[in-house]
């Protein structure tokens, strides 16, 4: 893991949802930057893959979009978490934590019984 890691399939949606929960309504570029920053710039995100993911979440009803003005006065499409999206985030986060905890147990030094 010398270089930046690619975003795994499936985790991008979780990151998008969490980002929107923390930051509130945000446009695509903002979400992308935020994910990069949060990862401590360890993650290499191809911005182009973000938009199909956003579209998918929107089609599934987890987020909604709306045109608005960005901080530097550019017309941008803002995404906002819906109630269904919040629930989805909760569920996904929990299952993700569970999964990582399990993997963690395998990888951590064996505890003496």
């Amino acid at each position: 893991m010398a270089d930046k890691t690619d975003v795994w399939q499936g985790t991008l949606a979780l990151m998008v949802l969490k980002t929107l929960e923390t930051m509130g309504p945000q446009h695509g570029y903002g979400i992308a930057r935020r994910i990069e920053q949060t990862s401590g710039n360890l993650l290499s995100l191809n911005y182009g893959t973000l938009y199909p993911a956003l579209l998918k979440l929107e089609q599934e009803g987890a987020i909604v979009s709306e045109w608005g003005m960005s901080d530097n006065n550019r017309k941008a499409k803002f995404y906002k978490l819906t109630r269904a999206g919040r629930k989805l985030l909760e569920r996904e986060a929990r299952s993700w934590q569970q999964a990582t905890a399990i993997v963690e147990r395998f990888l951590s030094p064996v505890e003496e019984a």
Partner: protein
Amino acid sequence: MHSLPRRLRALWIRLLGLSFTRPANDEITAELECHLQLHIDDNLRAGMTPQQARRHALIQLGGLEQARQTTRERSTLPWFEYLLQDLRFALRQLRKSPGFTVVVIITLALGIGVNTALFSIVNTVLLHPIAQPHPDELVAVDASKPNFERGSISYPNFRDWQKDNRSFAALAIFRHSGFLLTGTGDTERTHGEYITSDLFPLLGVKPMLGRLFAPGEDEIGRSPVVLIGEGFWARKFGSDPNVVGRAINLDGRAFTIIGVIPSSFDLNLGTFRAQDIYLPIGQWPNSALKLRGAGLGIHGIARLKPGVTLAQARADMNAVSDHLATIYPEDDHGLRASIRPLREAIVGYIQPILLVLLGAVGFVLLIACVNVANLLLARSNARAQEFAVRLALGASRTRIIRQLLTESTLLALAGGALGLLLAGWGTGVALKLVPAALPRASQIHLSPLVLFFTFLLSFAVGIFFGMLPAWRVAAQQPQNTLKEGGRGASSTRHRAQDWLVIFEMAAALVLLAGAGLMIRSLFALSRTDPGFQSKGLLTFSLSVPYSPATATAEGATAWVHEVDRRVASVPGVTAVSFIDGSIPMTGDDDEELFWLQNEPKPSDENDMHWALRYMVEPDYLKIMRIPLLRGRFFTDADRGKSPPVVVIDEDFAHQFFGDANPVGQTLNLTDPDQKATVIGVVGHIMQWGLDNDAGFPLHAQIYRSYAQVNDGDGIPASRFTSDLVVRAGHADTIFPDIQSALRQMNPKQVAYGAQTMDAVIADSLAARRFSMILLGAFAALALLLASVGLYGVISYLVGQRTQEMAIRMALGADRSNVLAWVMKRGATLAGIGVGVGTIAALLVTRLMAGISLAKSSLIYGVHPWDPLTMVGVIAILMCVALLACYVPARRAASVDPMRALRSE
């Protein structure tokens, strides 16, 4: 992230996205544009030059166009969109060549429709002819005797068989009969069956009301009860639920109704039909019922015990009959039970015809498939250049193949849909032509399985031949095809098309030859002399209830005279005769048992001589126009008190007297026992039908005087029925006049069952006519399809060679040269097809000749290799083939060379 509702919601939005493709596209573009701008702004702020900033942002995005593409694909359903595109394109392509489209669809529809229709009939009639449960256990049972392979079972033998056998779960017998119904509305002739108690239970029939006959209720001397059919119940009793216990009057006797048989019951075996009424056989007021040697037209049906094979049942019943023959040698010597599967008994006679037709229709389907293949081949060859251009412009091979697949599928679907309509219609038409007695005709319906099968087959053919050339085009280097101007690599495909056309021509010839022979057979039959003149003959039956006036011999004789007088006085009637015993062509037969003057009396009936017996009045010869060869026919003087006399036919004379003069010889008759003198010899008539007469063993015919046989008998206490035959100017329309004349004489007597002899003969040939019409139709269809195939190939050839021909003409070739060249090419193909087809036809007609219909071959009165038929059908095929070539040939010859060359 895979919960179903969310995914469905996404799918729905993507589907909606299909129709809003453009706005969604714009929005995606705008959003990505904004993304870039925001990123560039950031980069500029970070101190990059504008170019650097933009380049960096684009790299991070992964390319603007790619991002737009992936996002757009997510916004709709791309595969679905392609499909819609392909469909639209395919429809446009098909619309552009309507001739091709229509021909392919119609060809497919004909193949699918005809095949499905016929197979639906076969499916019901041959494969499922019996509606009853476990039909494989059901067998038809008859008594085989020296003169009759499947003769009548006598009642006493039936009882012993029933008691002694160990193979049958149940055995029952039945006898058709007619009754005069009185007291329930108008006096009416009804049809019924005398049956035994086991019949309905063994067939699995349950009464819809009341009960069936109880065991033992069918024995002689039990109380008179009757089961009625649902139709009769509705017609006569208005479906009264309290009908059980009421009485009906049949032939002057009261019968108590005990149950109603549902109209869903259907069985078509020999003379047995679902009827209005069913009586226990013990109720039959026929004194001969008790006689073991009596042949009364009683036949049987049985259900084998589970696990018992036909062979085991036969062995068992042989033992039973042989045992009876030792106890009753006089009656049962040489008599055995004959057992065959019910299916065979019901459909055995029509099976060969249906199988021949099925073979024919298979040919038609094959030709249809070949035709479609041919058309698709020609078309995709013609489009080779189009594919090459598309490939060169960057279309993917899979996309082109998918496109062609869509087109073929569309054609196959349209053909299938039209075929379905055609099949429904065709089944109806075929059923109208079907011999009336076809089992379960009312249950024939479109078989979905068959429809599916034929559809799948033509579908597969369409796809396969649609894809094959596409595959080749896609696999080759487009530049080659482009260089050759679309004509490239086509010689091998020419050859494939040529072979297909040759095959079609050959198959069509085989069908034409078969149909030709069937037509010739019927023609031969129509010219067969039955020994009498059928035109102008009408037969009918007359029933009269008992009355004291006719109960005496004098009364009965007077009644016969009066009937004769009344019928003869109907305008148009030239002569009339009562006829009893055998009736020509109808299947009603009756036999005289006798021995010759110089022979000792045989010990039992089966060792006596048998002859077909006709009991007629003096005018009979005149009515039938049978020639008198020797001596004299009956006169009014041949009555009860006068010396017994008989007239014989030429076959009788030849069989028993050789070259000696039979007139004046004496015969010993058995019914009643008396000596009779032969007074005349008449011509032989065909008793068993035009095509079957030669196949039956019983040919000798003997005539007895109606007045002499019946003299001394009054009209019996129940009723009296006899048949009459008249010669009349308009035999087909005169019956109502006869009916009213007879009703005028006595309102209680009923004349019914009128048939012209021409109709009887036509009916006896119905199965042949049915197969001839269908085979003819299939052959015509095959010819049409094959010609379309040839036309397609020649047209294609002409289209490909237009320039070549233009050059030839420009260099001085005559138009007639071009015409001849094209015609020669077509004639060569057709000629090879005829050559191959002739060999195949000779084999197939040989096979057909081996197939027999009742007692004669399917091909009758004409050699299976009849040269006239072969030459005729070859001429027809060649004419139609040349016509199919002539149209494109004319087009080729009328090309304007300058125009054709300039268009290059």
